[in-house]
């Protein structure tokens, strides 16, 4: 009987070591090419793929809302900038505050570059807090970019007499009723973080079913004020300022106050924050707003197609016709490239455990000031 040849132990050890290294490094190895933000692509190969196909923008909200309308505007223009000029349509998959759409594109739908997700960037903060139901990793998405950028802002009814945040701080500060949804929404988190970091005497009234019911409640004097994005104040909530100014904006979440006549008495929350920890919390809570109306594809989409989609996305946002249509909605065009978006996502999702704990503590449900 012939003896089998013994395996070279050096070769075996090296093989095992390399295998272990590959398994351990697999996520980063798989992700690395996408995250290198390749910008060049083989136009002919990409065109051959997309020709005759349909690209679907999966929107995480029902038709008619801001996200839906912006996506339909993008769909109107995007196709002509993708090589092969595919048809671009919108598919609404509402649910879970847009988490359903994000989960679908990340896990289920074809990862060949024909599905783009548009979901609320607030989901990234929820991923950072470890919220259940989030079945994606925001860092692994390939980010095409975002359309707009905003900052949180808090406003109170003029007839409350509140014109400056100092009137709501300290022992003589007045308690004001601020409307909110459930914890986890942008409105609620902005209100909570302002209270936690600046010591504002906000009594948060939870449970309203969205920005509109909160705004109604302020209009009929059930509430004293609310916090939302500055972009909302200048667009969908414009009737609160023109022709008659009913609200005073007292604070914005960022490091400086935008130059606008409605912000005469507003303070920049980060400038007023008492310490660096408070400033970090304010930055993190506002970070999702810096990525308003974001667009992503799944991590496994081939790099060439990701690069071509990024290029097409940038050109769409630079298209004057798109800009005109967007202006009609009152949404400011402040685009971010895929690279910039990924950097912001990394800031949100790279929090240390103690920072996450501080964030959760600041944002947890607490009625009184």
């Amino acid at each position, binding site marked *: 009987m012939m003896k089998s040849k013994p395996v070279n132990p050096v070769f075996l050890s090296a093989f095992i070591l390399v295998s272990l290294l590959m398994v351990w490094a697999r996520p980063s190895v798989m992700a690395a090419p996408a995250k290198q933000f390749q910008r060049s692509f083989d136009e002919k190969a990409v065109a051959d793929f997309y020709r005759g196909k349909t690209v679907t923008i999966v929107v995480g909200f029902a038709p*008619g809302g801001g996200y839906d309308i912006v996506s339909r505007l993008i769909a109107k223009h995007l196709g002509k900038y993708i090589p092969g000029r595919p048809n671009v349509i919108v598919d609404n998959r509402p649910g879970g505050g847009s988490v359903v759409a994000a989960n679908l594109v990340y896990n289920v739908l074809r990862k060949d570059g024909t599905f783009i997700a548009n979901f609320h960037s607030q989901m990234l903060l929820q991923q950072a807090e470890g919220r259940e139901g989030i079945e994606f990793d925001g860092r692994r998405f390939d980010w095409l970019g975002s359309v707009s950028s905003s900052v949180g802002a808090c406003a109170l009814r003029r007839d409350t007499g509140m014109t400056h945040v100092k009137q709501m701080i300290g022992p003589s500060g007045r308690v004001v009723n601020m409307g909110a*949804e459930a914890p986890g929404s942008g409105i609620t988190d902005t209100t909570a973080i302002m209270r936690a970091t600046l010591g504002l005497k906000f009594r948060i009234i939870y449970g309203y079913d969205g920005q509109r019911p909160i705004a109604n409640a302020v209009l009929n004097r059930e509430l004293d004020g609310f916090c939302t994005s500055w972009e909302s104040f200048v667009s969908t909530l414009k*009737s609160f300022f023109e022709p008659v100014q009913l609200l005073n904006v007292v604070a914005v979440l960022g490091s400086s106050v935008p130059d606008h006549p409605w912000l005469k008495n507003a303070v920049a929350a980060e400038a007023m924050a008492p310490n660096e920890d408070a400033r970090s919390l304010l930055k993190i809570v506002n970070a999702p707003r810096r990525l308003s109306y974001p667009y992503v594809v799944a991590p496994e989409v081939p790099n060439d197609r990701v690069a071509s989609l990024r290029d097409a996305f940038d050109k769409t946002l630079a298209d004057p016709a798109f800009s005109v249509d967007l202006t009609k909605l009152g949404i400011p065009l402040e685009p971010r490239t895929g690279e910039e978006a990924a950097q912001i996502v990394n800031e949100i999702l790279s929090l240390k455990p103690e920072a996450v704990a501080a964030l959760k503590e600041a944002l947890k449900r607490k009625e009184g000031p």
Partner: protein
Amino acid sequence: MIEALVSSLLNVFTYPTFPFLLIGILIGFVIGILPGIGGLVTLALMLPFTFDMKPVAAFAFLLGMLSVTATTGDLTSILFGIPGESIAAATIVDGHPMAKKGEAGRAMAAALMSSLLGAIAGAIVLAASIPVVAPLVLTFKSPEFFALALVGITFVASLSGKSKLKGMLSAGLGFVLAMVGLDPQSGMPRYTMGIPQLWDGVGLVPVTVGLFAIPEVVDLWVKGTSIAERGSESLRGVWQGVKDTFIYWGVTLRCSMIGTFIGIIPGLGAGVSQWVAYAHAVQSSADKSRFGMGDVRGVLGPGAANNSSLGGALIPTIAFGVPGSPTMAILLGAFLIQGLVPGPDMLTKHLDLTFAFVWLIVISNLITVALCFLFLNQLAKITCVRGALLIPGILLLVLLGGYAESNSILDMGITLLFGFIGLLMVYLDWPRPPLILGLVLGKLVERNFFISYQLHGSGFLFRPMVIVILLIGVAALFLPVLQAFLSKRLGLKEEVFVSKED
């Protein structure tokens, strides 16, 4: 003012406004008939097309669609027992039994005429009330919404048929269903079984479509006949339906006012007003025995209310930019796109546009009703087609309808599940409308209760308007008992207490 009224009417018939109005009507006609695919979603899909339109043309396109969906939705509810629109579900309760008795033409004619009159009533109130509606709209806050939603529960008794206990339990089941989703106070998932699609709750459309449509389909299959068990009546039935609207003018008018009033209150809308109107039609009748089995008043009430709600909902939308319903929230997007700011400008600078809305609602309903009457007899003949030929198409529409709300396969499953539940309820003689009402009102009751409690503590129950609303509810609840008691004790005829037309 008169000049603005006249000039806006003439404007509606100019080019391109009138063609866009006709296109909107055509779209609304089809969408209303197709179950599940609602006016809300269609409005949102039509919105981007209005970017390049002038304001009157844009609103002609949108309001033309919106004005007719409730009308044609009633037709599907009557013919097939499937709600063509979720706001046309109440029409099924008496409309479909009328179709089964061979009175489809009468039911449809009654629905059309009451819809037209309801729409006109809503439009008139819209035109007359914008300058004065502000105090009314601003009076209603969370405690008052809580009270209104609670009073809505008192109408459950009217929807319960013979067994009030079963009705209350059915409404209770609806309340439990309303709790599925994220807790509005803490954001924690409740009864979602780890499914993110359920974070927003169980969809009203799949539940409604499943609960009402599938039992009817099974019934049709088991019977083996056509929908109309005794053959369809002739054209005479159609004219009878028209006459019914005027014979029972009190019900029609009162339910129009109910729909308009509920439409004005932000957060409510035609989904609630149709049931309140139906309950009022029942409660105000001396002879309640025919309700649920094909009483034409059960068609007139919801038909009037679900159309008048549009005019009512436009009032706070135009006057303050406060949407009176989810549909109005989308219409506000149209305002934005057109560069219009709701508020005082709509009553001064853009008064002609505001009056154009009034005319658009009236004219689109007139055109739709006229068109429907042309084909009414042919539509009624569908009820004579063998059920085996209709069932596949109806089932397809039912499942598509369930799917279309959120493009979700889960919703199709919910449709089937509630179809099964609906079958059980029919078999065990449990009323289904209270379950829907519980599902709609449960969320309102919970949200507004907790908001009111946070703001006012238990003292919110002692606010004057809350007390008035609750007393109205108590009165409505005990009115039938009081009527019966007084008629026995005083030997008075019960008809003394109800509308003369009975």
